[in-house]
């Protein structure tokens, strides 16, 4: 900014000089023309021109256009002198402020644009993620459902097999118990019969019968020998 101002100072210097020349020249011209107008005399230098100029100015004045060239030149010179100052103290800071404002706005717009892009990207990512999550969740749910169905079938098959096995085992146990009880019953009957037989034989076994048994044993012993 300071560099810009110094360069503007350098570029304004010829204008100021020109302005000063014009200002002083205009004042001088105005004084000369005023004196000539009031005196109606011809100025010493350029007399013909001065007459013509006064006549022309008077004609313009008569037409309703009162122009004073000296004042006009002086005004232009003053404008040329004042213009750099106005430019330096007002236009340049204003331009800088506007530029800065524009820059800030542009930066803000860029930032907004960036944020908007980021938001768009995030939204897109979010939507993708949601879609992915939904797909994954759906896939997991489907897998869980399949697994649950498989487990259900497996459990049902296992339960059926166990049930069959239990029924079979129960039948076998019943048959076994039945056979066991029948066997025990037979053994008991046998035992009772033999005990009774032993008692009957013991009660009826007298010496003669015993001697007969001994004699038979001795005879059998001979046969076996």
């Amino acid at each position: 900014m300071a560099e810009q101002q110094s360069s503007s100072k350098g570029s304004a210097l010829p204008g100021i000089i020109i302005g000063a020349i014009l200002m002083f020249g205009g004042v001088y011209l105005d004084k000369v023309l005023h004196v000539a107008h009031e005196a109606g005399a011809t100025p010493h230098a350029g007399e013909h021109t001065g007459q013509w100029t006064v006549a022309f100015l008077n004609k313009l004045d008569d037409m309703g256009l009162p122009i004073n060239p000296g004042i006009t030149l002086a005004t232009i010179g003053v404008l040329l002198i004042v213009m750099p100052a106005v430019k330096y103290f007002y236009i340049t800071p204003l331009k800088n402020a506007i530029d800065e404002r524009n820059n800030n706005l542009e930066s803000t717009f860029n930032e907004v644009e960036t944020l908007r892009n980021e938001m768009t990207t995030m939204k897109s990512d979010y939507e993708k993620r949601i879609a992915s999550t939904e797909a994954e969740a759906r896939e997991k749910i489907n897998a869980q459902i399949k697994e649950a169905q498989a487990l259900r079938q497996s459990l049902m098959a296992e339960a059926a097999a166990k049930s069959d096995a239990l029924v079979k085992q129960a039948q076998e146990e019943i048959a076994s118990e039945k056979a066991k009880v029948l066997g025990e019953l037979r053994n008991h009957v046998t035992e009772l019969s033999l005990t009774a037989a032993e008692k009957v034989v013991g009660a009826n076994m007298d010496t003669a019968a015993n001697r007969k048994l001994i004699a038979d044993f001795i005879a059998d012993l001979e046969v076996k020998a």
Partner: protein
Amino acid sequence: MAGDRVAKRYAQAAFEAAKSANSVEIVGADLAGLQAALTGNGDLRSFLLSPNRGREEKIALFEKALGEKVTALSSNLVKLMLEKRREEELLTISDEFTTLRRADEGIVHITVSSAIELTDSEKKQIVEKVSAKLGRKSEAEFAVDPTLVGGVKVAYDNFVIDGSVKGSLKRLRESLRQDNLKQA
């Protein structure tokens, strides 16, 4: 078990000495008599088996009671066993000696059980037939066992010839049990 081994060793030594002296029968009878005395006389058995009595005291009592009734070989054997503190083995040495004698002479020992007392004729027939069946001499030991109900049972070595009512019923019972098992 250790006592049996000791008794067998003493019996083996006594048997070999008796056989050399041709007095196996006499020594066997001495030892059987000694065993019968110890089994039948509780006071004598308690005295000889008592750990509180000295060896000399036991030997003196033996000499006084039985010393003159047995052969010198038997007397020396008993004294030796008393000196060696082998009183316990006196109860079984007779059986071991008898076993050695039977093995040496090829005699089989049979046990005949019957529900009633057998007559001498019956005993003789049984011994003769068993000897003929085995082809060896046999010595029988007879016993009355009323639980047999009737008939006779002969046992020798690891064999039994069972002609008793009890044995018949037992075989019948086993047969019926086998049938029951087969039906089950």
